[in-house]
């Protein structure tokens, strides 16, 4: 067994860290899109909108019931064969779309749970003062539901960041791709992938600290 080549790792770290912005960009865009989509899906479920409700149920079931990797391959390799506008879709876009749909399905379920957690009498009170369905969702229900769901949604964001590494399989040179290329030249696979792991770990730890602070703040706001 040879010792770890720390010097090589130190050299490699900045190179791989150079791809952190790409990783974060994919995760942030997919997260924002997934949040919007998830909120819409959750509302359709909660209000039991005819027809749409059934479709959304199937959508959620499919994206929770199949592996993300399979979904990404479907978008990147499969769909372009039957949907002409999708030919020439690049790996980054396909990854963002895949992450968005996949995570929106999970997030819709937690948002739905949080919406149902807002006590019924608040819905009725909002209706009784003449608010429209849209007003009561926007002003009363969703702000509370978001607060309840925030810790879970934050966990999904962390999961999403880690899942961007799957874009590698769509030919995107992100952190994994870069490490793979470097290691192919140096044969130091352990060091290269260890650097990737440490960078992911550092990002996630940083976010976890932020998450704890956010939770403490949200907790205070409601208890005041």
């Amino acid at each position, binding site marked *: 067994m040879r010792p770890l080549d720390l010097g090589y790792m130190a050299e490699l770290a900045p190179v791989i860290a150079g791809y952190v912005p790409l990783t974060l960009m994919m995760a942030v865009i997919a997260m924002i899109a997934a949040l919007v989509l998830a909120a819409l899906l959750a509302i359709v479920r909660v209000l039991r909108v005819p027809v749409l409700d059934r479709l959304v149920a199937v959508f959620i079931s499919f994206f929770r019931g199949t592996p993300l990797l399979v979904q990404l391959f479907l978008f990147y390799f499969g769909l372009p064969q039957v949907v002409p506008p999708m030919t020439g879709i690049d790996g980054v876009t396909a990854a963002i779309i895949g992450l968005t749909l996949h995570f929106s399905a999970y997030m819709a379920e937690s948002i739905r749970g949080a919406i149902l957690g*807002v*006590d019924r*009498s*608040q819905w*009725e*009170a*909002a*209706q*009784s*003062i*003449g*608010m*429209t369905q849209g*007003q009561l969702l926007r*002003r*009363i229900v969703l*702000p*509370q539901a978001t*607060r309840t769901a925030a810790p879970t949604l934050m966990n999904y964001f962390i999961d999403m960041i880690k899942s961007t590494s799957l874009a590698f399989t769509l030919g995107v040179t992100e952190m994994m791709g870069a490490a793979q290329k470097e290691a192919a030249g140096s044969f130091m696979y352990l060091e290269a992938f260890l650097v990737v792991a440490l960078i992911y770990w550092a990002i996630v730890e940083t976010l976890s600290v932020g998450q704890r602070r956010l939770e403490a703040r949200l907790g205070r706001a*409601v*208890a*005041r």
Partner: protein
Amino acid sequence: MSCEIDIRGLTKRFGANTVLDGIDLCLQPGERVAIIGPSGTGKSTLLRCLNFLDRPDAGVLKLGDLTVDAAKASRAQILALRRRTAFVFQNYGLFANKTARQNLTEGLTVVRGWSAARAEARADEILAQIGLADRGDSYPASLSGGQQQRVGIGRAMALDADLMLLDEPTSALDPEWVGEVLDLIRRIADGRQTMLIVTHEMQFAREIADRIVFMEGGRIVEEGPPAQIFGDPRDARTRAFLRRVG
């Protein structure tokens, strides 16, 4: 006799269960009517139907110049009706993400389209009337039950509604808070706010109401001035009920 508020043939079924069986009720401007009756008799459902929190199956509701045929009420009519009525809930129904003051302004700014400044001025007036001038910035979770229900009533007051509907406003309260809430309702009643209140507090109903309505089995069995209903009830069912509640 002019009916400011006129309810005709109001009917509500839950499945095969007819909960309201053709309710007729006429309220004159400023009239305060208390509804009493056994549990499960449709008292809450009656109030909820007037606000379309439960959708009635049949009947005609008239509030001033607004007439709504329950069976074919449009969304716009339902909103119009809600904008002229105010509801006080047994368990307050305060917006947990809004301060006491915001609970009062919400209906004014969002529904009535008032400016924030005007709504806040009105809210502060009402906070003073309900004895919470210094708690405007508090969230419901930090208020006592009695304070929360006073905010709930304040929210209804702010709307300056043609009809205030109160569904057992004190039954969820710890006994220590009942008095302050009843005092507040008494003051609103003294201001001749037209109101329909469901209550189990017989003494209170007797004091504040112009008229008592006794309901049983989804129907109005008997109605009349408090002195007559409590002193000389005509119907055997009314007598039995009043004997039971003491």
